[in-house]
């Protein structure tokens, strides 16, 4: 019986064509917005989680607090804020497994007679540090190799740097020489594209070589990467390190000149921002859905008026109030559902477009469209319900029409 009512509803909708489509506009804009936003937001969350999962949630970063003792970004000052003594202190902290120090400095670079000032990062010379830094940054060679023990004037080039991201005149090939502060470095490896601009635009050279060519103090460091021991709570380790560094650097609690970032903190911050953005955008989308619902209600009221006579005929051949009510509810629900289906399609298309645009123009793999089944099913159910609810009052009005009056209506 319900199946028959669906058939009646569909045939009524087809019959109305243009007006049905116009009515759906509000719904499909709203649903498209919701689907697009949720799929992108969800995709971004997944991508971020994925990255942190790969890096591992057992690592944290110690950096100097910028803007306190020094006014520039790390590396802009001649004296580094962190030192190898700090690193040794961290290594002694309970719960710390591995440590690795890095320098990130700007330098004069020259390739193919093109001169640029850009950042150069160091790779620790010790095995432990090298492993940790490689894992934490997910360095992988696309061609050639990564740095190894004994390398001196060798460099590993980030994907974008190699592909005219910095030197515009020529691509950097394996074996090419790049001058860093007027010293020749040989490109021994080119990194895979990571999608993270910071990582794709990096030049990595051995730590000793960096200190030598740029004249950096022997004990200076910009970043210390820490890996917590297995089974240790990362937040506990972070607190231990903080306490130890306060003592080592002789600063009071609350006046630390260093910062410890755990993956959770970064994840939480990003998550909070994403949630805020989602709430605002879904709020806007809900307004559109509300307007769409009112549109459906309006169309259904018109339909009830237009079809008053038909309602009378149906009643005269035995339709009960509930039959008429169901027929009209299904019809308005179908209006919503069709609008919703189109909206889902548009939303999916839009977020896929954003993903493609982000990958090609921004070079980030962080923006990913993600379409879980529950999102699609939820959106469709929701749009059907919006339609049905909007049609509730008109359908009730239709159902309660007196057959005599309805039949007389012209």
């Amino acid at each position, binding site marked *: 019986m319900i199946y028959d009512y669906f058939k009646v509803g569909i045939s009524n909708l087809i019959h109305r064509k243009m007006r049905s489509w116009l009515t759906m506009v509000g719904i499909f804009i709203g649903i498209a917005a919701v689907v697009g936003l949720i799929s992108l937001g969800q995709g971004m969350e997944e991508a971020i989680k994925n990255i942190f999962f790969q890096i591992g949630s057992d690592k944290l970063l110690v950096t100097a607090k910028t803007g306190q003792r020094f006014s520039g970004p790390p590396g802009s000052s001649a004296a580094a804020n962190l030192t190898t003594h700090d690193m040794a202190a961290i290594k002694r902290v309970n719960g710390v497994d591995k440590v690795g120090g890095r320098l990130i400095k700007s330098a004069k670079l020259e390739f193919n007679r093109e001169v640029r000032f850009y950042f150069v990062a160091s790779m620790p010379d010790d095995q432990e540090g090298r492993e940790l830094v490689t894992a934490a940054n997910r360095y992988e060679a696309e061609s050639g190799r990564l740095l190894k023990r004994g390398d001196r004037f060798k460099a590993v080039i980030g994907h974008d740097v190699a592909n005219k991201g910095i030197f515009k005149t020529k691509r950097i090939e394996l074996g090419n020489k790049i001058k860093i502060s007027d010293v020749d470095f040989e490109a021994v490896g080119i990194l895979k594209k990571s999608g993270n601009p910071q990582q794709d635009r990096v030049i990595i050279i051995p730590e000793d070589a960096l200190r030598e060519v740029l004249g950096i103090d022997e004990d200076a460091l910009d970043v210390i990467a820490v890996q917590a021991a297995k089974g240790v709570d990362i937040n506990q380790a972070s607190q231990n390190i903080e306490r130890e560094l306060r003592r080592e650097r002789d600063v009071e609690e609350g006046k630390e000149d260093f910062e410890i970032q755990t993956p959770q903190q970064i994840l939480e911050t990003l998550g909070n921002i994403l949630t805020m953005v989602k709430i605002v955008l879904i709020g806007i989308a809900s307004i559109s859905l509300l307007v769409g619902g009112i549109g459906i209600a309006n169309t259904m009221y018109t339909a009830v008026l237009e079809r008053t006579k038909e309602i009378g005929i149906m009643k005269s051949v035995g339709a*009960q109030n509930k039959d008429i009510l169901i027929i009209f509810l299904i019809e308005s629900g179908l209006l919503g559902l069709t609008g919703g289906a189109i909206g889902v399609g548009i939303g999916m298309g839009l977020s896929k477009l954003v993903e493609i645009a982000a990958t090609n123009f921004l070079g980030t793999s962080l923006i990913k469209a993600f379409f879980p089944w529950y999102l699609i099913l939820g959106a469709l159910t929701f749009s059907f319900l919006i339609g049905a609810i909007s049609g509730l009052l008109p359908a009730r009005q239709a159902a309660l029409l007196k057959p005599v009056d309805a039949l007389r209506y012209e």
Partner: protein
Amino acid sequence: MKRSVIRLENVWKVYKMGDTHVNALQGLHLDIKEGEFLAIMGPSGSGKSTAVNMIGCLDVPTKGRIMLDQHDISRLDESELAQIRGRKIGFIFQQFNLIPTLTALENVTLPMIFQGTGEGERISRAKKLLGLVELGERIYHKPTELSGGQQQRVAIARSLANDPEVILADEPTGNLDSKTGSIVIDFLKRLHKADGKTIIMVTHDAALSRVAERVEFLKDGKIVKSLNNK
């Protein structure tokens, strides 16, 4: 003595029009027997339409009783009346009253949908009925693609969909020329004779009323004259 199918007992219908009350029916008595062909005649404003609405369970009286198979239906609610209409009464209207968006076949199946008849049975029965009114070739046509006479035949087929006891025809030839009108009347006669249906026909055409076994003349909401054609 034959059984009463529908009996109106002292039926009053009062419409309020602003401050004035209009008595459409004023103590109407009418006893319709099983298998009877009854014509109700009267000038416009005589209360014919109101009487049809009462007989067809489309409306309830202000006062009085309407007995259908010995049950008083004048106090039933809309849904109960709808069920009775669907099962017991087949309507034929002056305006045909087919649903324009549906094909002839779908129009005939419609009353069966509301009785919960299965789809296969609905379609085969509707096809049979459309064959009966000689429209077997036009079952997929919409009402607008059919002539007035054909539309009224679809309406006749529809009135038979749930095999009702009573066929209620309200000016069935009012919108037809005399030739197509007489075809429609022939179908009604056949339903009466061959199938034993109770036919109630409302008309203002004296010639038409002669096909009925009994004619009741209505004026000012009351029966003023009865005529037996038998």
